[in-house]
């Protein structure tokens, strides 16, 4: 009895020490990630994964660190494809140990950025599977919807593109990009009144949008000249 209790206590102590060490690495990685010290974050999370490759927090931390590094580079307009590939690879592994809703948004965003970056690298690349996966992971990722619609538009699948834009606006009326792109689509088709309708609707949602202000003004001018010329 005494022996068993002592063995249990020792076991608990050992586990406690191990947990404390592991938590120490993750905690340091997390702190580094929060203050933008991404390299140190990668180092700590990697060390925790060396101890236990199944550690969900360490894997998520590493994936987020890669994400932050790639997104930083994205803002600087640098080459990001290898960074997003690395990020998505990490999220894929993470998905094997945690498929809960907590990681879905970040994984979905990574796929969006990978699709975008892939297109930047090769405009003929087929990124629709990446976007579909991104949307499947997070059905509220309207950036992925928006990019998919743009691809459809450029592939000549106009109705499908329109449906996506309308769907996006219906689901998230504050998503300005969908107004801009749908208006653009009508504009390219020569349907100036519809383009003006959509842009002005968007402008009501976000009066600060430079694009919408610009395009709404262009459409208004166009409509005026059409009226003046008797075409409307």
């Amino acid at each position, binding site marked *: 009895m*005494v022996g068993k209790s002592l063995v249990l206590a020792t076991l608990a102590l050992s586990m406690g020490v191990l947990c404390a060490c592991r938590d120490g690495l993750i905690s340091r990685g997390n702190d580094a990630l929060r203050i933008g010290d991404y390299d140190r974050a990668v180092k700590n999370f990697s060390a925790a994964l060396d101890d236990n490759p199944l550690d969900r927090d360490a894997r998520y931390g590493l994936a987020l660190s890669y994400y932050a590094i790639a997104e930083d580079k994205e*803002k600087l307009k640098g080459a990001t494809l290898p960074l997003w590939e690395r990020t998505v690879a990490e999220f894929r592994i993470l998905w094997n140990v945690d498929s809960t809703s907590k990681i879905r948004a970040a994984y979905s*965003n990574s796929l969006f950025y990978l699709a975008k970056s892939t297109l930047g690298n090769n405009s003929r690349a087929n990124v629709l599977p990446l976007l579909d996966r991104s949307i499947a992971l997070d059905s509220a990722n309207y950036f992925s919807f928006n990019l998919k619609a743009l691809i459809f538009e450029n592939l000549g699948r106009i109705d499908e593109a329109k449906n996506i834009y309308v769907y996006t606006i219906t689901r998230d009326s504050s998503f300005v990009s969908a107004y801009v792109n749908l208006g653009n689509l009508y504009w390219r088709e020569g349907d100036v009144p519809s383009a003006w309708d959509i842009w002005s609707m968007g402008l009501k949602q976000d009066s600060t949008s430079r694009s919408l202000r610009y395009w709404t003004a262009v459409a208004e001018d166009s409509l005026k000249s059409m009226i003046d010329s008797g075409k409307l």
Partner: protein
Amino acid sequence: MALVDSLTSASFLHRGGEASIYKVQGESSRTYSFKWYNRGVSFDKGTIGKLQKLNLPGVYRILESGMVEGRSYIIYDFVEGAPSAELSPMPLAFALHSMRKVVSALQALQRAGISHGDINPSNVFFDRSAVPVLMDFGIVGPGVLHFSAPERFTGTAPSEKSDLFSLGALLYFWVSGETLLKGETFEEIREGMGKLSSERIGLGLMDMAEAGKMALSPEDLSVLDPLWKGLLQPSPESRVEDLEELDELLEIALEKLGGEGVHLARQQEQLCKSISGIIEKNGAKALENVDLPFLKRGKTSKTRKKGFYLALVLFILILVTLALFMVFGGKGTSVDETGALLMQKTRDSQLQSAPDSVNMPDMEGVLERLKPEESE
């Protein structure tokens, strides 16, 4: 602390079909009897439970019952004396007088809802003063064949009526020194049971007296006839109504023999001598000291408890340390919280730059190059 944990030494006394009896010593050198049942055998917990709460004259005092080493046990006060089996035949007046004491004890037990179920010469001890003490309650089976009422063999629980039959058979043994029912097997006993009648019993005893096996006159033996008639009946309904009625019959029989006078006092004195002789004889035999596996349990139990509490304190300390570490020294925020913050930042940044970065002019530039080959 349980009494069984305080036992320090044991001497073997007797081994029966269902249990072994030991003379054991506890703290302050107090002596007890320890009845340790064979594996798989136990006692009627209801009866023993009730008895543990009682302290009646003429009944052994049970101090503790339970399980040790996977076997049931009962600890009761050690009675220094001799079983009535070793004192029979005994003088008739003394037998009747002692039977009244046994009946009195059984009446008190009846009031507590307890029947013995296994009254036989080995279960009635006589202490140093030749006072009978009833023992070994709580039997689960029918009891000793030669002394059990016939209905007990059909699975009927012990009752006042079944005890009355056993008391008749016991009285017969006390008076004659032989069992009423002869034979060793159940069939033989049952056959003898079918032939029972007060006349046969009386005649049988007279034959024994004539043969010199007993120093009793036919007149003395005749006082017993109402007792055989009232007790040794195969049918419970044919027996006396209850223990009170039996006591009256015993009183009448005693009066016919001359009452509880000087005659009885002399007989009691003789019995006391016999009992002392048996005690001395048993004491002279070197009692076999045995090392029961649980005897040092008291000491080890204390050590174990101490160790357990020590381990418990250690374990709690570890838990508290870990909790403190997690509260003060552990991670401030979780990776999930950081992830949520990062995603919020990303979304804000995307929304702000979306018209320029996602759509126009960048994406438009990208998509300019995205046109299908066939349209080129």
